[in-house]
């Protein structure tokens, strides 16, 4: 019963993320989705990743969104989507139905067998994944500094553009095309 409530609440929050007109509201609904998914993960018997999901999804990402739309500012929201709604609903329902058809029969929880602890699995068996994550974070930071640090470069480029466009333009040199022998005509004499 609790599971049903959680699931329905998560789906409704997700819908509100898409539908709400203001970006701040969307970010808050997203935090709500994160929290509910985190509880579901805990109920699945995965407490470690539930904690990660909660702190990252409901914490970090929400802060990021707030930062982002503080810089960007609000924009007038147009409700009309570019693709006709029936098509969207058709594709979505069809995809979900097919996937459900595929996965529902297979979903069943056996009793939990003994297995190595999360720490052992993460650090020893999937150690390479951890390295990949470190590389990902590193490249993310580099990308971020490159993207946001480019603002100064942008302003310098704009200044340079203005000085260049004020110079007079010289006409390009004329191209000379070589002469080729015309195709031999097959005219009957």
């Amino acid at each position, binding site marked *: 019963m609790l599971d049903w409530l959680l699931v329905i609440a998560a789906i409704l929050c997700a819908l509100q993320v898409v539908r709400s007109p203001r970006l701040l509201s969307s970010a808050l609904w997203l935090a709500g989705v994160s929290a509910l998914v985190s509880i579901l993960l805990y109920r699945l018997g995965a407490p470690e990743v539930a904690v990660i*999901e909660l702190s990252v*999804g409901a914490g970090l990402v929400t802060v990021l969104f707030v930062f982002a739309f503080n810089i960007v500012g609000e924009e007038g929201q147009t409700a*009309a989507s570019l693709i006709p709604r029936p098509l969207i609903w058709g594709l979505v329902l069809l995809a979900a139905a097919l996937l459900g058809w595929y996965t529902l029969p297979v979903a069943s929880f056996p009793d939990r067998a003994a297995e190595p602890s999360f720490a052992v699995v993460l650090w020893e068996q999937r150690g390479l994944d951890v390295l990949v994550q470190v590389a990902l974070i590193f490249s993310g930071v580099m990308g971020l500094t490159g993207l946001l640090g480019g603002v100064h470069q942008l302003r310098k480029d704009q200044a340079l553009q203005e000085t260049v466009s004020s110079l007079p333009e010289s006409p390009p040199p004329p191209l000379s095309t070589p002469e080729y022998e015309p195709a031999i005509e097959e005219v009957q004499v």
Partner: protein
Amino acid sequence: MNALLSDPASILVIGMLGLLGVGFYGLLAVRNLIKMVAVLQILIKAAVLALVLAGRASGQVNLGQSLAATVIVADTVVAVIGLALAVQVRRRCGTLDLKKLSQLRG
């Protein structure tokens, strides 16, 4: 059908499918670039849920958890870069609307 409604596995699969469906709907319907990043986040949550579900169904919860943790890190980096790109797009092109962006030249 009763079994479906009460079996926790099925409920969670339906939940995952629901999030996936909302995510797809958002992908196709959203016009604001920053909201698009939020929709991607929803999709990733569905994926995380699916991973842990699969782990539980095959008896290897901790493996599912490790993979899910990796996915969460990756999706956070995606969110960061996506938002930084959105900020830059707003600065250079003046708009975040997808329709206007696809008509811009240069």
